[in-house]
């Protein structure tokens, strides 16, 4: 198998149903080598379900998942690193024992690398995991995942509970891995992290992929066209069904159109309505995310599966 030609992480028409509920619907996502893909979505949008099936913890109802062009086998984990959202460490074992466990099970385990990472995150290896703080817990999981120098990384909320310094250290690890050719898929509630580290972003909502693209191209195309009118906002003349516009918000004499591409064209069209002023506003990834998922408050606060 030629490693430069296969797609490291390929999700094809993946659907997962739990009983009557469809957790993920027809998701297709190919992640290229050396790319860092940020998977975003409110709780319950299907991120964790996708990770679970990708890692073989659950089976897709339909569709397929492939790592390096092939279905998962035990040998895959020699080069795949994973940090779970929920801690999966043994509370009664020490950090040192966890490292020993990895040393015994991974051919790819690199003790020098592990020691560096332990140093970086200041993990107390002598303490039992149950006695570690939430952040140290996460840090140990990261040390374990990166100690084999994996070329594929699947990270579910890899920085949760870490202080800002260590969060930055995690981002640096991800960036370094990608610069060395690793492929990374990670989810985070902190959009700022995705905005920095990811070149690709995929947004899930209710199990469906609603936004997929590079961060830069999204920022280049997703804009707000804002128009201010002297009087009442006139009849919109079919603007609501313009495919370039995903949403229109009116408040008083201000009209805001959330545009997914060709903001200049939309601005010209709105200009025909003779507003006092039209401007195109840039969006941060957070704005793009919130526009895409819409009413965030309606998303369930927990129960991500």
């Amino acid at each position, binding site marked *: 198998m030629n490693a430069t030609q296969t797609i490291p992480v390929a999700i094809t028409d993946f659907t997962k149903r739990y009983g009557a509920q469809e957790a993920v619907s027809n998701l297709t996502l190919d992640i290229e080598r*050396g*790319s*860092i893909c940020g998977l975003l979505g409110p709780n319950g949008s299907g991120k964790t379900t996708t990770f679970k099936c990708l890692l073989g913890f659950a089976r897709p109802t339909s569709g397929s998942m492939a790592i390096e062009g092939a279905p998962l086998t035990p040998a895959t984990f020699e080069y795949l690193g994973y940090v779970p959202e929920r801690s999966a460490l043994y509370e009664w074992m020490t950090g040192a024992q966890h490292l020993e466990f990895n040393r015994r099970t991974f051919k790819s385990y690199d003790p020098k690398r592990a020691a560096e990472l332990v140093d970086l995150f200041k993990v107390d290896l002598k303490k039992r995991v149950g006695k570690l703080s939430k952040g140290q817990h996460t840090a140990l999981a990261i040390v374990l995942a990166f100690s084999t120098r994996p070329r594929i990384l699947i990270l579910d909320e890899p920085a949760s509970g870490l202080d800002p310094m260590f969060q*930055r250290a995690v*981002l*640096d690890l991800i*960036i*370094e891995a*990608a*610069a*060395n050719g690793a492929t990374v898929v990670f989810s985070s509630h902190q959009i*700022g992290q995705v*905005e*920095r*580290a*990811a*070149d690709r972003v995929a947004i899930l909502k209710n199990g469906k992929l609603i936004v997929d693209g590079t*961060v*830069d*191209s999204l*920022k*280049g195309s997703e*804009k707000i066209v804002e128009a*201010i009118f002297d009087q009442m906002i006139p009849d919109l003349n079919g603007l609501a069904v313009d495919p370039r516009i995903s949403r229109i918000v009116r408040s008083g004499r201000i009209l805001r159109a959330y545009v997914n591409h060709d903001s200049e064209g939309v601005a010209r069209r709105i200009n025909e309505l003779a507003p*006092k*002023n039209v*401007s*195109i*506003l*840039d*969006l*941060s*990834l*957070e*704005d793009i995310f919130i526009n895409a998922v819409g009413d965030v408050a309606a998303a369930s606060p927990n129960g991500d599966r």
Partner: protein
Amino acid sequence: MSAIFTVDPRSGVPLYLQVIEQVKRHVALGSLAPGEQLPTVKALALDLTINPNTVARAYRDLERDGVIETSPGRGSFVSSNGSSANAHRAIDDVADSILNNAIREVKNLGLDRAQVTATFERQLDRWFPIGEQK
């Protein structure tokens, strides 16, 4: 050396464009001299904590524009060939982009062309008083 660059990931301006503008600005100001080596893609990505592909894309565009040169195995350097012309073009690019943003914002205030021109000239007089013009 890479610490001279700064980017704002939260801004709506794509990061690769920010990197391009930063490099051009430094070439224009001379803080990056012709022939001077730029950080590697990996080093700059780590320094700014941004995606390596984003940096690589910026470098590719800068190379296409002739601002930098990349030799395989050695790294990227500020172009020395016709460097003064490059520096000038870089200055123009940066100046364009700054003025473009400024004019867009004034226009957003609802000013028409004549009003913008008047404002612009008032500012010109402030920064370049009569008699000082070259």
